[in-house]
């Protein structure tokens, strides 16, 4: 999106092409069936399901704890330690699984906050317009005039490390993007004939929003938030890598990478860096490809080159 669009006063055109009048005429079962025809989507879903299952199961069935080191340092993979141990003696497999819990928890949790706040603000601004709209657009313009990871870093540096602050930092920097998207979409729906029609027959604003606007926003929100989760997971890992996210012994993937890298043990045991790196990249790629596939399926007329 160009900076030109952001600063102009002209109402922005909707994202991609005009939305289908009833975008969700495609029933959920139809969406799933179409997704299953999409190879990238199938692989992504399998990767994510595997991650979720491993994240839940491994810490339960493993004899090791993520925060209690064993006496065996830097072990190669064995029957006992399936992925070996690190330089403190932690079992890497268990730590990766707990790291997956953290990543998914932060990614999905933050995105839920972003969706609630972003949808609410974007909807109100787009539907009612007026000063609320102006205020929101000026505010999000400001937020866009600023690289969001920098703002997240500043928040973490001032508030101090920890999971709660990670949540706050990433939610605060995340919602404006979604709010703009929802606003643009609402704006393009507001004056459509079927909305006018319900207004003419006496439907209240609340019922129009609930019955007509919200269902038509679903597509945009689902696609954008799936892609956003990938970004949130990378941001969390970045903050932890820089030492201002989660703190030891929490096994955030970013923290595992920085510990191994900075201690230098990774030179002889590259797996210390690359196991968490592979987990991170696979998860992020899966969300990215799933988001792209969802866009293809839900919005077939949309602009795919974006």
């Amino acid at each position, binding site marked *: 999106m160009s900076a*030109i669009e952001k600063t102009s006063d002209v109402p922005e055109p909707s994202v991609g092409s005009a939305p289908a009048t009833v975008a969700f005429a495609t029933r959920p079962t139809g969406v799933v069936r179409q997704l299953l025809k999409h190879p990238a989507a199938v692989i992504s879903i399998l990767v994510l399901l595997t991650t979720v299952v491993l994240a839940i199961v491994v810490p339960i069935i493993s004899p090791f704890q993520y925060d209690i080191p064993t006496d065996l340092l830097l072990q190669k993979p064995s029957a006992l330690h399936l992925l070996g141990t690190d330089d403190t003696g932690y079992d890497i497999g268990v730590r990766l699984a707990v790291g997956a819990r953290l990543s998914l928890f932060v990614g999905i949790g933050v995105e839920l906050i972003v969706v609630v706040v972003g949808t609410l603000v974007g909807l109100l601004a787009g539907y009612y317009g007026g000063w609320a709209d102006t205020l929101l657009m000026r505010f999000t313009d400001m937020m866009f005039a600023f690289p969001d990871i920098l703002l997240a870093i500043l928040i973490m540096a001032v508030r101090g490390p920890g999971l709660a602050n990670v949540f706050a930092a990433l939610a605060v920097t995340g919602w404006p993007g979604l709010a703009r998207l929802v606003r643009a979409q609402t704006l393009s729906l507001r004056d459509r004939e079927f909305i006018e029609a319900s207004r003419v027959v006496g439907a209240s604003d609340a019922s129009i929003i609930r019955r007509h606007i919200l269902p038509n926003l679903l597509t945009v929100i689902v696609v954008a938030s799936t892609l956003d989760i990938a970004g949130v997971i990378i941001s969390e890992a970045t903050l932890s890598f820089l030492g201002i996210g989660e703190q030891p012994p929490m096994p955030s993937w*970013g923290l595992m990478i920085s510990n191994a890298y900075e201690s230098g043990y990774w030179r002889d045991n590259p797996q210390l860096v690359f196991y968490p790196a592979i987990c991170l990249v696979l998860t992020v790629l899966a969300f990215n490809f799933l988001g792209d596939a969802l866009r293809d399926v839900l919005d077939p007329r949309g602009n795919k080159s974006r």
Partner: protein
Amino acid sequence: MWAFLGKRLAFSLVSIWAIATITFFMAYLAPGDPAAVRFGDHSNPQTVAAWKHAHGLDMPAVPRYVRYLSNVCHGDLGTSLYDDEKISDILKERFPVTALLAVVSIVIALLVGVTVGIIAALVPGTWLDRSLMAFMITCVSLPNFVIAPLLVLVFTLRMGALPSSGWGGIAYMIMPVMVLAARPAANIARMTRGSLLEVLRQEYIRTARAKGLSPYRIILVHALKPALLPVITTAGVSFGYLLAGSFVVENIFSIPGVGNYSVISFSRRDYALIQGVTVLLAIIFVAINTVIDVLYRVLDPRARAAGTEAGAAS
């Protein structure tokens, strides 16, 4: 045009003011006492009081805020909580390193990204196009701190060709630049391809084709210039993220720039320094995007026309 320029500049100034305000109040509301950061928990109350007075930390919020804003306008970003050094001096010494890395990286990213984008747009839908684009999506999904160890593994640990940390000479820049340029290059390549394909659908291209011009001539002479306009905007936004990305990259490669110093300051809880770095980077980011928006206006005849129409209408 002048109206646009004025509006754009006003918006930039307001943005910078907003950023300075946000950073001030975040630091003001920070949990804990800055004196505890400076002197530790057990310190002489008199020393602490004198230090607080010298730095205006005993002032109420509003005068402190006004003083801070006026200081920022004069290029004074305050002093470090760690050793009382002037933050503007620290940045003056370290920012050139960060800026050099960022500029070299964005130039490389533009060269590689535009080239790859053109190649992909020449053969859309083929295996070459698909694999190039898949590679680019992967590049966007790879965080800096994953690419860097990979490069160090190959170029330092296996080949022994490049130094894995330090600063001084081109050899020290190769890996950091590769890491920093990867993501913007990927974004620029995707943008170039998309925008070029869009332009190729226009009617004047069809006319050129009907006249019998070769496809290469059409792309390189007639389609490229309009197609590159949106790419400039992408590059501008990328540049800001590149500056922010220097935190990770300078840390990994021990480069004596602003980013590395900030990471050191995290463990010292020196949020005054982070505040100064944030304001500096934000001002640069806003300035670059302002220049790019204006350039866009100057270069794109359609945007110019739209501007006059809007001006006439209002």
